[in-house]
């Protein structure tokens, strides 16, 4: 694996804390080329140019709340005198963290959200529909050039559509709901160029875990990442999202990918109808990093941090109690399909609970049509309704202390699926192979598929 250009430590400290320090660079003067993220911000702020560090106020094109953060947002919104919703057509509530409601409290929160949404004429993505950002993508709200905010940190995954998408907290979302705008500090951009072709049984999730392993949990704090190259071009839209969603775990403010025909087809748009920005030839990047993924091995992130990636042979043999396909980034159709290829004609190990939580109802529909669900169920999979599910231990697939799970989900911090439980992150293929063997297994050893 080659790292064409390494960010030096000084550079990382420049990236670090720009937002916190509030370095203000006045616009004007000599015109310099801009990155895609800078162009989106400049366009929205009505400025001919913006530069990293500059703070601007920008209008928001679409905002969504999920059921874990909406209750506080609604409470904060109601504190504002005479507050009205800035534009109810640009807002959506998504019931995805406790879906269908898993406790009395969650049910009450859902009820409050539905009441508030009805009163203000806001759309609700109901329980069972799926995880917020995959649903926002499927519904066509993520479009090139837009500024999209969600109360989910993994909102960054919507940058796959050439928009600036990022996560914010509940109180800030209450303010957005009232004003339709937000302050942003223009981030520095790091360009990641992905060359090469994935080998057998190597997936976009392995690419994501590989990037995380290289950059660590805070190296790209506050930065925008532009991810492009032949590998990205070769992936379908949802495979691209599997990578951009995980970029949050490197601290990025937003991740952005180029807009091509696959994106335009997905959103039912054209070059003419969409606001597509290209980086200038003389755009200034904090760094440009190039990877060739041709020799990439399956990657497994060991418990503690999603950035703890090791090649699968270093984790092989660890016994597991649970295997999970789940979360926004790890339960797309391509994940279920990959697992089914491994599991076809095989059985899940008797000591393993294999839990599948698709990330949207459309994934369930498509998987059913393709016979993927019957393959997985025949192998011994347990299906739960589309939701965040096991990823945060949301009452689905919670671990007992000292139990071990291998999962396609987004995070593996201590206690994430229950206190004392250990989580290894991996691709759907590695998870499926491990489910069969009862221990962490290189999917290439089982063969089949790809």
């Amino acid at each position, binding site marked *: 694996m080659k790292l064409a250009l390494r960010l030096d430590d000084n550079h990382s400290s420049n990236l670090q804390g720009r937002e916190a320090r509030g370095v203000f660079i006045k616009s004007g003067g000599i015109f310099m080329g801009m990155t895609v993220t800078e162009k989106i911000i400049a366009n929205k702020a009505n400025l001919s140019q913006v530069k990293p560090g500059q703070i601007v106020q920008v209008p928001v094109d679409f905002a969504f709340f999920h059921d874990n953060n909406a209750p506080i947002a609604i409470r904060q919104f109601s*504190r*504002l005198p005479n507050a009205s919703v800035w534009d109810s057509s640009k807002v959506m509530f998504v019931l995805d963290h406790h879906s269908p409601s898993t406790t009395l409290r969650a049910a009450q929160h859902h009820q409050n959200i539905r009441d508030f949404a009805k009163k203000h004429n806001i759309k609700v993505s109901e329980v069972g529909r799926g995880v917020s950002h995959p649903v926002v993508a499927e519904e066509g709200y993520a479009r090139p050039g837009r500024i999209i905010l969600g109360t989910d940190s993994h909102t960054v995954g919507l940058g796959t559509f050439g928009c600036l998408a990022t996560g914010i907290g509940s*109180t800030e979302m209450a303010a957005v709901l009232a004003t339709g705008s937000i302050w942003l500090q223009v981030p520095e951009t790091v360009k990641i160029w992905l060359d090469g072709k994935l080998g057998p049984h190597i997936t976009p999730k392995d690419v994501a875990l590989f990037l995380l392993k290289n950059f660590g949990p805070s190296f790209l704090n506050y930065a925008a990442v532009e991810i492009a190259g032949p590998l990205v071009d070769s992936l379908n839209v949802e495979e691209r999202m599997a990578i951009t969603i995980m970029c949050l*775990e490197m601290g990025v403010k937003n991740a952005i990918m180029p807009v091509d025909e696959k994106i335009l087809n997905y959103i039912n748009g054209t070059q003419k109808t969409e606001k597509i920005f290209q980086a200038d030839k003389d755009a200034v990047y904090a760094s440009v990093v190039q990877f060739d993924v041709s020799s990439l091995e399956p990657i497994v992130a060991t418990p503690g941090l999603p950035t703890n990636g090791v090649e699968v042979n270093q984790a092989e043999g660890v016994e597991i109690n649970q295997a999970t396909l789940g979360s926004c980034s790890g339960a797309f159709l391509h994940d279920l399909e990959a697992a089914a290829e491994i599991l076809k004609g095989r059985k899940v190990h008797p000591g393993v609970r294999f839990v599948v939580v698709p990330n949207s109802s459309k994934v369930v529909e498509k998987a059913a049509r393709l016979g993927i669900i019957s393959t997985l169920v025949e192998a011994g999979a347990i299906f739960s309704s589309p939701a965040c599910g096991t990823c945060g231990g949301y009452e689905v697939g919670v671990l007992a202390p000292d139990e071990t799970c291998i999962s396609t989900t987004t995070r593996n911090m201590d206690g994430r699926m229950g*206190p004392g439980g250990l989580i290894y992150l991996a691709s759907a293929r590695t998870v499926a192979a491990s489910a069969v063997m009862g221990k962490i297994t290189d999917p290439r050893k089982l063969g089949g598929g790809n």
Partner: protein
Amino acid sequence: MDDFILKGRVWKFGDNISTDHILPSRYMTHVEPHELAANCMKGTDPDFFSKIHPGDIIVAGENIGYGSSREQAPQAIKCAQIGAVVAKSFARIFYRNCYNVGLPAIMAPDFVLDVNQGDLIEINYTQGGITNLTTGKKYEFIKPPDFLVEYIELGGLIPYLEKQLKK
């Protein structure tokens, strides 16, 4: 206006303290202030709330607030009456959330390197200075932009916005 001063004992934590450490996801539906306070730092120190006193300061290494966007994390810290969070660096959403709920988030890497668990410190937020009263050493930090300082003075984004909307 008088300088904004915070004084308290230090509770020291390491790098990459995530929002799952600060407020585990299983408590996220518990949104009342007393519940949030009781579960503060539960993912890393289950007894934290029973040990602290009002005004104490959380000090952490790199990248505190890593992970999810949950505002319940800084809310829990604020509800537990912690005066401020001082760290070498902050994760992006957590940093914004701290200010939005009116909790000072201060980047002071030199100070963090020197300070020990239990030290008594005084933060002059207006002047951008920290004094370690246990060791006598003084440190400076770079204050955020003025509007964020105003968030802290007023108690967060909502009171700030109320003021703006009245204008």
